[in-house]
């Protein structure tokens, strides 16, 4: 077990449920869903029309600097918003700016950024459609007309690591970093690798952020064709569940060594205790029925944190509403906790599946739940599927049995991640 404790000094989040972790959590706690018909394109005739879109999305509200809007995409705006809110709440820049020049430079070098990014989309490539149409199948024309047709900054807009680069530039942070593109586990992995960078002495402070904006026509269509999108509602663990629903947004944490937080008298919201991540080696789409991967990820996280199953006070399940994932997730919880699982909840029914941002945004909500002492009920749960029996999930609120939350996350490629956090 590591001697360095990793504390959380600020959070930030945005999704269809709200623009702060507190507001999003309140919506979940109060049983409200912000999933609604998609507005970004005309879905007349579409077999699926639901998503957790941010209503009245305003790029200026996300990122004030208009010049930047030409260089980045919607997903980046969301990531920069959540990260900026967390950095401001932690007072990192204000603290640094009060330091002498040398100390400020060291502060920047010792503050890193770990990002989980959705890593791409389809719409950005449509910027080539006018050129393709004009070229009429001739690559020679495509090449010669290129510079007259396509935004010269196209490649920069496409970079998966824009949030990382622009947080660094805006706040002057220069430390240890990564941009992780591991589908739904990306945000959770940003927390895990950021935590390890603090433990091993690479950095004193880490801004971790996950962001994604998957609600676009071709993405929704593919997931629908794969049978992964719900017809009417995302109903985790329900006998009638039939799929997931996309959301969009970002979540962010400022993590610090205990010594860094103490040195700047930062308010401590909680602690990252540990994390684990594994692969099921089943290919892109398949997952094991027995929940083996997820169970191993939880055990790895518990070992990493140096605690046991009985110490866990509540579980935020992945609960994405697909038949296979929820059933195998319940199996994994039964495997690790036996008959003694703490209260289980899930959040995606309220604002959708944020893919790369899911694990980290839900971590910010877990901290709210622990602070308020409420495990929100899953309002979309009517009748527990017998396949998901044996886990204490309920449509009604429950009470966490300790100050420790376990946050589960599952992604394509058979990847499973588990995070453990505690509230102060």
């Amino acid at each position: 077990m590591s001697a360095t404790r990793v504390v959380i000094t600020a959070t930030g989040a945005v999704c269809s449920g709200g623009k702060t972790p507190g507001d999003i959590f309140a919506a979940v706690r109060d049983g409200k869903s912000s999933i609604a018909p998609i507005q970004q394109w005309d879905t007349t005739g579409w077999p699926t029309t639901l998503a957790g879109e941010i209503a009245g999305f305003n790029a200026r509200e996300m990122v004030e600097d208009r010049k930047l809007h030409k260089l980045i995409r919607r997903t980046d705006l969301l990531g920069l918003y959540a990260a900026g809110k967390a950095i401001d709440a932690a007072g990192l820049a204000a603290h640094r700016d009060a330091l002498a020049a040398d100390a400020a430079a060291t502060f920047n070098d010792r503050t890193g950024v770990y990002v989980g990014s959705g890593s791409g989309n389809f719409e950005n490539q449509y910027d080539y459609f006018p050129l393709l149409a004009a070229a009429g199948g001739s690559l020679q024309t495509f090449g010669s007309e290129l510079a007259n047709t396509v935004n010269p900054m196209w490649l920069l807009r496409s970079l998966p690591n824009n949030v990382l680069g622009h947080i660094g530039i805006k706040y002057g942070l220069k430390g240890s970093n990564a941009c992780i593109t591991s589908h739904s586990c990306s945000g959770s992995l940003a927390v895990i690798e950021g935590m390890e960078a603090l433990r091993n002495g690479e950095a004193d402070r880490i801004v971790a952020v996950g962001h994604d904006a998957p609600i676009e026509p071709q993405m929704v269509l593919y997931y629908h064709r794969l049978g992964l999108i719900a017809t009417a509602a995302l109903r985790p663990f329900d006998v009638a569940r039939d799929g997931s629903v996309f959301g969009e947004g970002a979540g962010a944490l400022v993590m610090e060594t205990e010594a860094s937080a103490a040195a700047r008298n930062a308010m401590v919201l909680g602690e990252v205790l540990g994390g684990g991540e594994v692969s099921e080696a089943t290919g892109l789409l398949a997952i094991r029925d027995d929940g083996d991967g997820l169970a191993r990820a939880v055990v790895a996280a518990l070992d990493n944190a140096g605690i046991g199953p009985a110490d866990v006070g509540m579980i935020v399940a992945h609960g994405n509403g697909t038949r296979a994932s929820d059933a195998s997730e319940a199996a994994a919880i039964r495997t690790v906790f036996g008959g003694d699982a703490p209260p289980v909840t899930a959040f995606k029914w309220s604002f959708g599946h944020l893919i790369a941002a899911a694990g980290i945004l839900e971590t910010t909500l877990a901290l709210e739940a622990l602070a308020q002492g409420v495990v929100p009920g899953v309002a979309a749960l009517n009748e527990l599927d017998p396949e998901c029996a044996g886990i204490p999930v309920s449509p009604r609120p429950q009470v966490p049995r300790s100050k420790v939350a376990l946050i589960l996350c599952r992604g394509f490629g058979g990847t499973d991640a588990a995070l453990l956090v505690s509230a102060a």
Partner: protein
Amino acid sequence: MMPRKRVAITGLGLVTPVGNDVATTWDAVLHGRSGGAAISVFDASGFPVHIAAEVKNFDAAGALGDRKLIKLTNRSHRFALAAAEQALQDAGIRPTDADATRWGLTVGAGMMGVDFADLAGTQRHSAADGELHSDLLLTDGPANDPVAFCRSNCAAGLSLLTRRFGIRGYTSAVHTACASGGQALGTALKLIRRGGADRVLAGGYDSMISPVGISGFCLLSALSPDNATPQRASRPFDVSRNGFLLGEGAGFLVLEEWQAARKRGAHIYAELAGDGNSLSSYRITDSPPDGDGPIQAMRQALWSAGAAPADIDYLNAHGTSTGMNDRSESAAVKAVFAPDVQRLSVSSTKSTMGHLIAAAGAVEVAVCALAIRDGLMPINANLREVDPDCDLNFVRDAPRRQRVRMAMSNSFGFGGSNSCIVLRHPDETDAAIRGEAT
């Protein structure tokens, strides 16, 4: 305090523009035989730049032996699967049912994108006038083909590799543009050090030699426009350099906890000894002229390796052959290695292979491992007149024969991520371990 776990490099696999295996690539890199040529994978004659360093004569069916699998891959995934297979064969070990959960996978992955043929197909069906008609997507071929989706997903490479080789432990894909491959190896190093895995398959893969990929770089004027002289186009640190030569390929390494590797009698190329990782936080595409950012990455890598600048004998530079990068990197190297910077031998093997983007860092760390094994440093090809701003001690004209105690590899990416990896000769590591024991 327990001595920190060390990490051994026990297997290498390479698919590069100058060779489809390690031996061929190493020979070409040592002697500076360029992989540059006119682009052949599509008609690039109308593009401002129509040269690149392509992987040549790559037999995917032969290398992978599974036609069903090939359907699920894009070009870069095929390179990755082939290079990873080579690395595991070279190491003489692969995951078994008994230890699969103790194997990890870390990759530097290229940018997600649909294959150009699929993009063009969707344009013809759903955007004939240049604008997307979302109702037409419902009957579009590629947009409804799950296999096209699988090829394009960001987790595709990772899932192909874990499934093919049965890796069931920690897996992570990183994309920090041209720093991706180096950061993937750094991730693996830290993973083994903290006990999160005993063995890791780590590497990078990329292919942007496609109409859209070439377009992106052309629009930024990042590529050398020397269409008539593709083999001379990449000339890092030369005063006449004018952009990089786009390459493609994959590099994979098998990494093992040192004692475990020694116990099974594995051949160890080198210790993967240190990882440094910083942000320039300057501009998205520009490098800071004074080397700020890369300086911190190199210093952190030395710290991570427990080494001093004087311990490094060979630097495989990022050296892209752009005006700005090479100047900025030279300033950083001088700052870190002062006052003995002329003692350090430097070359950029992008002078022969071109720039493999997300694969570059992993491929170049493999080159450093070979330099340590053979006591031979590869040349910086095409260096006729050194830029006075880049007055380092370059390996020129012929490979330099000298025992390499430690080597360093730099990779800096768009977005400002800087990765630096340090390797140590295995005899030096064994001596250090004996020192710790007494």
